[in-house]
């Protein structure tokens, strides 16, 4: 405990103080873009699956793949084991496909994209122009490296990709970064070879649903030996009402390659719940590594629990190669309901998996999130750092699995999961499963649950910081280890987000 306290105190620095002071409104991404949309009819049926496939101009093999998933899904039951309590989802009262009319014909370049769409992204702070971030502007105090940073973006609006930036520059290196609907057409062999091999179509209720109806998403291929020179990022925006978003992302890091990938998500404030069921598959070959970061800020619903996104996501990395590495970092602040367990299958010898997570649940939000580390190869290593914060009437659960297979000799796991409670109407839960089946392997798990330390709070108050800011400061300190794992460009954004998400939780 004492170590934890120390760290939290150390975590408070001027940068945090400043960022907390400059907080904006509660959910600043809640606006709606007024735009002409084309919808598929409401509801889910074989016809809808066929329609989505047709809209994307897909080959037969893809359509059949979807139809098989659909047939399977119809026979499956929604899981009831998470500590989540939500009204049943009426799968026939959703739109499964919504597309801005102006994108009927895919724009050749971003210049052709409808201005209202571009404005939406500008308002969200997403650079759809091929501009360079000046690292000096963001987090300058900490960043000695003031070289301009580039971030390539694939923007997904409701069911379709708006456009992808820096494509040409990436192509020169042999890197493929495009929407998955394009990839199915342009690189069918790659897609065929890898899709569904990490998260099989039959994996779970939501992944199977996604397999049937996914409309778009991102595709990345990093060729052998290439270190991707810029951050790749996908920005998901749900805009249309009553519309589910089902994106599918597939990233393949070939031997000795490296990529850092970031996804962000927002949605307008709406009174009704909206469904988001995504699948992310990462394939990591020999000596390759992928850093995958998420800042999930879907609309969480209002302070009475009205509206908000139901977020059911299956993310999994398959470390197939020797010495391969995956690092998941997630900042989960949004959504009314979150069900998400980014996992690593450590198949290759000496492969490594890391999971860093901050999950904040305020008001009536519910989060059941964590990770799975499956150690199959020899000498595999995993590390889990999870920070959960509950406030208001929220329920926040860490659920994790560490499994060391009998053949995974000399493997190691370290898990640290800490929970903070703010107020006595919320809940914080920890449900780890640890299964060690090898005598040369070691697992270590530590978890604590407590409230904000009174001494820390008093220290801040005594220095003239008001209670709400002080709590935000301390929470940022509590989360620092995870926030630091984010790419520099996004760490500060995430810090602000942490503070905003907790607004109104004190006093």
């Amino acid at each position, binding site marked *: 405990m004492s170590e934890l306290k120390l760290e939290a105190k150390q975590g408070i620095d001027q940068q945090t103080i400043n960022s907390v002071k400059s907080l904006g409104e509660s959910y600043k991404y809640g606006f709606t873009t007024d735009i002409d949309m084309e919808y598929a009819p409401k509801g889910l049926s074989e016809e809808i699956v066929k329609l989505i496939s047709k809209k994307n101009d897909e080959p037969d093999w893809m359509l059949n793949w979807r139809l098989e998933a659909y047939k399977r899904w119809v026979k499956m039951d929604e899981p009831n084991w998470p500590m989540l309590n939500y009204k049943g989802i009426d799968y026939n009262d959703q739109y499964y496909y919504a597309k801005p009319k102006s994108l009927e014909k895919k724009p050749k370049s971003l210049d052709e994209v409808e201005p209202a769409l571009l404005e939406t992204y500008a308002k969200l702070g997403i650079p759809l122009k091929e501009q360079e971030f000046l690292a000096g502007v963001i987090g300058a105090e900490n960043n000695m490296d003031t070289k301009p940073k580039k971030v390539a973006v694939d923007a997904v609006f409701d069911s379709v990709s708006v456009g992808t930036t820096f494509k040409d520059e990436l192509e020169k290196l042999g890197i493929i970064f495009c929407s998955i609907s394009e990839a199915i057409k342009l690189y069918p062999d790659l897609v065929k070879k890898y899709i569904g091999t990490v998260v099989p179509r039959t994996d779970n209720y939501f992944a199977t649903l996604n397999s049937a109806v996914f409309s778009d998403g991102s595709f990345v291929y990093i060729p052998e030996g290439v270190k991707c020179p810029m951050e790749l990022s996908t920005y998901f925006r749900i805009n249309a009402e009553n519309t589910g978003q089902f994106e599918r992302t597939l990233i393949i890091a070939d031997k000795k390659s490296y990529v850092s990938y970031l996804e962000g998500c927002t949605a307008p404030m709406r009174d009704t719940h909206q469904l988001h069921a995504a699948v992310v598959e990462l394939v990591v070959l020999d000596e390759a590594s992928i850093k995958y970061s998420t800042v999930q800020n879907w609309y969480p619903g209002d302070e009475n629990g009205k509206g908000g996104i139901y977020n059911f996501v299956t993310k999994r990395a398959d470390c197939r190669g020797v010495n391969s590495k995956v690092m998941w970092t997630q900042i989960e602040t949004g959504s009314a309901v979150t069900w998400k367990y980014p996992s690593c299958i450590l198949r290759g010898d000496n492969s490594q998996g890391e999971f860093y997570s901050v999950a904040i649940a305020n008001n009536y939000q519910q989060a059941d999130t964590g990770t799975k580390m499956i150690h199959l190869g020899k000498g595999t290593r995993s590390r889990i750092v999870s920070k959960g914060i509950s406030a208001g009437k929220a329920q926040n659960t860490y659920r994790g699995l560490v499994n060391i297979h009998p053949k995974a000799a000399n493997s190691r796991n370290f898990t640290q999961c800490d929970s903070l409670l703010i107020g006595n109407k919320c809940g914080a839960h920890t449900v780890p499963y640890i299964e060690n089946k090898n005598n040369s392997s*070691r697992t270590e798990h530590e978890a604590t649950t407590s409230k904000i330390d009174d001494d820390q709070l008093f220290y801040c108050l005594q220095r003239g910081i008001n209670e709400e800011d002080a709590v935000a400061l301390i929470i940022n300190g509590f989360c620092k280890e995870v926030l630091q794992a984010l790419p520099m460009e996004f760490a500060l954004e995430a810090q602000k987000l942490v503070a905003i998400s907790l607004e109104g939780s004190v006093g």
Partner: protein
Amino acid sequence: MVFENKNSHWIDAYTRKFEESFKSINLLDNKKEYWRFASPLIWHDKLPIKKFQETRSSQSLKFDVTKYSFLRFNDGILDTETLKKFINENKNIEICSFKDIFLKKDHWSSLKFSKAQLKAEKSYERPLALFNGFNAGDGVFIKFKKGVKKNLHIIYEGKNEKNNCIRNLFDLEENSEIKVFEHFYGNSKYNIVSELFAADNSKLEHCKIINQDISNSVIYHFFGNCKKNSKIKTVNFSFSDNPVRNETNLYLEGTNCETTVASMGFGKKETSICDNTVFISHQEESCKSRQIIKNALKNGAKAIFQGKIFVDSKAQKTDGYQMSNGLILSDDCEFLVKPELEIYADDVVCSHGSISGTLNEDHLFYLRSRGIPLIEAQKKLIQAFYSEILDEVSEDNIVYYIQNQISEMITL
């Protein structure tokens, strides 16, 4: 009092309820969290009951007869001689065998009977405790009156080839201080439910030893309701080569309760499964609970720990702690744990930890660098691994007895 007609007894209503609930559960459903790691069938009827075989006789545990009263179960039936002796020696304790309760129209236990179990069944159903509820053949019901201090030693011995269902009830009135040691030898298979009612300021030290020569499975449910300022400790030792499940459910219903659940298991055969399932429910303020679980495993043995600290929103200032350690000494062993926290109050300090792995190389080197041979060094470290559990036992002869059992078992 539940009196339907002359021929029915107040217990019958409970019995029927248990039977109904049991029958509504599908024991084959392997998706239930409650038996995620080991099916209840392992303890129920999946394993054929082994015939009695004369094994090397276990060292017996010597107690100072002036300090302890004895009760003995033979083949699941409470021995009347020891019971008579107990009654003669202890005027301030009310005691009755479970069998005899059926002969009494009225009994003090009717106000308590099954209350602790049924409370726990609300959170999730425990099929084998339910099974016990309509199959118990005997048991002992004891009421320790206000301020009584007593040390009790219960021996379970037998050679029969039945599933012996035994049902005990310990009622501790205010300010009583009780030690209960339970010791299992011999052949029989057991399904035991013990209920505990600990009144304000009462104190219990409960210790259970399941010997290596127990040749069938044991499942033991301990359900306790703990009131204000009570201090409850239950320590389990399991050396069995056969499946053992210790299930401890304690409800802390008064302020300032303190509870400790400590368990050690040493499994050294493929057939050995040591399952500790613990549920501590903090219902009131300022209670403290600790769980310490240690399992050493070799030759394909398996250990399971499912432990939960539940903190109600009323239970501010809770201090909860949970530690599980697995010492894996050879290939093919499994250490499977699910240490859970479910917390609805904010002013709490709860923590848990779990470590599994083999002996620490640096520790081994330090011992060896002083001239202690490898095997000796390993033995020392295994004993050190358990020391935290032994520290919980106040009775020296039990500590020595366990130490001897451990060193006998460590032939690496």
